[in-house]
């Protein structure tokens, strides 16, 4: 009996090894085919398709890319595997793969704020060297962070920019029309009016440091402040920052902190009145209860109007250790094509292109793209510094303390300034 069991076990093991060996051989084979890169991709349908791996931000951002892939796959004899991740997982996914000599990914989606860190450390391939250039149809301001020393590393793909998302009925009940919201004082008046009628005013995302900082930046910009100066020195303990913080505290006192999904639901249902949002979150229609506008950039009536729209643009690039750089660039060029990008609009795509955002047909169906286009023309990228992750963690932590009354504005900002100066050397 024991011999029989031993024989059966040996047989199972031999079969398993044989099966593994078979797979290994086949994957090795496909790997070989893959590593021949562009030539195999172009070789025609007789060769095995090359596999490209894309690492993207989950949500509409990835969805619009996925819908474009079948045509590219058919045309270039490739198959595309897509990994869709949250923002933090996407960042660590790209970074962890960057240390490998042979990378897994052939196209990656990159947040503008990671650009400095990625290019300083050679994570991204030089697109100029690979023969790709942006055309003039792309909104110039959105390309600001895509170049290092005139060399292109990224292409602005999804035009996310902060907007003011509001509930139409609540704003109307406060006696305002959308085009009458001209300053932060108007926002405060509307939110206070909503609060008096038993609704919540301003909803903000307080669930992590990044969201706290990003939602606040448009308010800070409206006061003429910013988080660093031209020499990359922190400027969070300034009069402008304090004034913006005090205004923000007044605004959020009319509402409460919620996570993104709750914020959207609140504004949509009218339980909440407004909040800082992104076009990728919500697609307003003529019948929808909510809509969005670009912030005016003025703190109060008659005050100077600053550029207060903050970019959250999702750019696309090719990792430097990609095994199929040529095909990666080919895919990038295809995805950035004006017609292909315009085709993504009905699915929620927001191209950084005039030909899409100013197209008469597009505007007839999606009038909000006029606002998005204006915001994209004059947006601000978050600071392009390699320490941005640590920077927003420190600033967000102190802002969280201020918002929750653990520290005063003066104390919190002084602590933030000291810690940030230490970080930035």
């Amino acid at each position, binding site marked *: 009996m024991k011999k029989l069991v031993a024989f059966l076990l040996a047989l199972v093991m031999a079969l398993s090894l044989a099966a593994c060996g078979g797979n290994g051989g086949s994957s090795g084979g496909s790997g070989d085919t893959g590593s021949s890169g562009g030539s195999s991709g172009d070789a025609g349908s007789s060769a095995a398709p090359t596999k490209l791996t894309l690492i993207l931000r989950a949500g509409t951002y990835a969805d619009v890319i996925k819908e474009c892939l079948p045509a590219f796959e058919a045309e270039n004899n490739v198959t595309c595997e897509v990994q869709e991740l949250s923002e933090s997982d996407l960042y660590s996914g790209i970074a962890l793969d960057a240390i490998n000599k042979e990378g897994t990914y052939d196209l990656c989606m990159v947040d503008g704020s990671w650009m400095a860190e990625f290019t300083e450390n050679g994570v991204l391939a030089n697109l100029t060297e690979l023969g790709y250039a942006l055309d003039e149809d792309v909104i110039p301001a959105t390309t600001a962070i895509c170049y290092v020393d005139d060399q292109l590393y990224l292409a602005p793909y999804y035009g996310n920019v902060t907007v003011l998302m509001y509930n139409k009925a609540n704003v109307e009940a406060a006696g305002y029309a959308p085009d009458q919201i001209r300053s932060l004082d108007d926002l405060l008046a509307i939110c206070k009016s909503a609060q008096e009628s038993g609704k919540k005013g301003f909803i903000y995302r307080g669930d992590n440091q990044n969201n706290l900082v990003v939602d606040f930046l448009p308010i800070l910009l409206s006061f003429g402040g910013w988080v660093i100066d031209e020499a990359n020195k922190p400027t969070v303990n300034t009069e402008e920052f304090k004034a913006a913080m005090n205004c923000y505290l007044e605004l959020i006192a009319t509402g409460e902190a919620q996570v993104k999904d709750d914020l959207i639901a609140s504004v949509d249902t009218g339980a909440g009145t407004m909040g800082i949002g992104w076009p990728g979150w919500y697609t307003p229609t003529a019948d929808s209860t909510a809509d969005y506008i670009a912030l005016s950039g003025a703190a109060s009536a008659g005050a100077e109007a600053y550029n207060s729209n903050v970019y959250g643009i999702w750019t696309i690039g090719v990792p430097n250790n990609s095994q199929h750089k040529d095909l990666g660039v080919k895919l990038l060029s295809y995805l950035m094509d004006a017609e292909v990008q315009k085709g993504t609009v009905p699915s929620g795509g927001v191209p950084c292109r005039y030909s899409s955002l100013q197209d008469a047909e597009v505007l007839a169906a999606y009038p909000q793209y006029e606002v998005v286009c204006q915001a994209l023309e004059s947006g601000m990228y978050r600071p392009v510094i390699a320490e941005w992750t640590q920077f927003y963690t420190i600033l967000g932590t102190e802002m969280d303390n201020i*918002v929750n009354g653990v520290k005063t504005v003066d104390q919190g900002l002084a602590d933030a300034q000291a810690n940030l100066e230490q970080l930035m050397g």
Partner: protein
Amino acid sequence: MRKNRLPHTAESSARRFGAGMISPTILVLLVMTAYPLLFTLFYSFTDYNLLRNLQKPASFIALGNYTKLLSDAYFRQAILNTVKFTLLAVIFEMLIGFAMALLVNSLTRGQKVMRTLLLLPYLLPTVTVALSWRMMLSPNYGIVNQVMETLNLPVFNWFSDMRTAFGMLLLIDVWQSAPFVFLLLYAALQSVPQTQYEAARIDGAGAVKSLFYVTIPNIKNSLALCALLRTIDSFRLFDKVNLLTGGGPANTTSTITQYLYNYGIKSLDFGFGSAGAIVMTVLVLILSSLYIKRAMG
């Protein structure tokens, strides 16, 4: 002479055979446990950053990471939060799990059904648990606030309010992990000899006396094991915090692991993160040693 050498040779050979047999296990343990620990310890003395390391190798900074870590008020707050959470979670989970085990063990019918139902929360993935509770406690469409509003009770923004966020995390952890305690203690209760209960009853002991003089002494090793496992697990709490509060509001729910994620892992500063991991390991060992000593003694 020959007679003396024979047993010695046999003993040596047996020893060699034993060592040969155990060496694969020791090798696996060394590779899987000792190596990562030594690796982490080594990097805790460097300024290793995953991305920066591509251009510039990590430098040795001696105790720099430890000094920075221990002088950071937010890390000290994270240690306090973690210890507070661990103590409260272990106490509540042990009490509730033990009560559940006693209840189910005393049932004459329906034990299997009750056992399965009570175990369900423990079988769910933590992400599912966290997201389900987030939906139930949502300030917009959450059933909890709706019920409270109907009953004219005050409603809260549970995960964003400093008064409630920590308590909610504790509640969710207890809800999910008490069944684990129940399972272990229920199995232990099954092995308590019924004759001891009968003897206690004949001696006039009531239910409470039977509990303290028969039940608990018989399952004390299982109780210690449960407490040890729950302590280690609670100390490493991360996923629920990261998904539900991110350590906020105002660091009131920040645990050691969440702190390490925010300040070390997220920014890829693995040198700093490694120092935090070493400090955490030492703290877990100190806490666990009390239980281990008691269980082994």
